């Protein structure tokens, strides 16, 4: 099981909560102070993307953030419940949006996080990221 799991209804305001929780749990797990800012940003991006997918698709459900403290890595998984929509959105250019947020979001995540996988599970898209943990 994840050490800590957060689920929230797809609203922008809860993305802040997700950032807050991820950073607090990561710090406590021993993730280096110097990468906490990046971690906070990356989690925010993954959650914003998930919220955007739910909102564009007019979907209810929840965004899931799983925080797992492994021996040597701190793993964060952000899953949306947007089903196949999450694939469409990742590939299509949304011309109506200012500056195509989704592409920018992924660029930020992949630019910041060394270990990142953009994949999927049963519910929809799943972004998996990890950071090293300092031995306590």
């Amino acid at each position, binding site marked *: 099981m994840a050490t800590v799991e957060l689920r929230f209804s797809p609203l922008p305001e809860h993305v802040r909560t997700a950032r807050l929780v991820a950073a607090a749990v990561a710090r406590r797990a021993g993730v280096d102070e110097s990468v906490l800012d990046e971690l906070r940003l990356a989690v925010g991006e993954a959650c*914003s993307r998930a919220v955007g997918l739910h909102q564009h698709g007019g979907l209810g459900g929840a965004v899931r953030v799983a925080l797992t403290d492994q021996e040597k890595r701190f793993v964060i998984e952000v899953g949306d419940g947007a089903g196949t929509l999450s694939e469409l959105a990742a590939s299509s250019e949304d011309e109506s949006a200012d500056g195509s947020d989704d592409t920018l979001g992924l660029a*930020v995540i992949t*630019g910041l996080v060394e270990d990142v996988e953009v994949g999927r599970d049963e519910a929809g898209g799943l972004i998996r990221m990890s950071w090293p943990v300092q031995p306590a």
Partner: protein
Amino acid sequence: MDLSLSTETVGDRTVVKVGGEIDVYTAPKLREQLVELVNDGSYHLVVDMEGVDFLDSTGLGVLVGGLKRVRAHEGSLRLVCTQERILKIFRITGLTKVFPIHSSVADAVSATD
């Protein structure tokens, strides 16, 4: 922390001073502000990011949107930013090539290139 916004006119430029967090929650306020300025005929904008604590891709998207809007009127959108943390986000998204970034408001308002 929430977003704070204030504007000031310097010659033909309008300086938008932004403070706090520009994220998926607050970015709509910044978008509104930029749209309003352009609608009111301010086409030369300087966005002062020195007070920004947090910036995500939604915020970047709003800035890109602002740039598109002023360009439609032959305008400009310049940024003021010296915070390494924030500059990094522009760099990894390739947006340092899209925005003129200055190290002070004085620099930005007098720039002409």
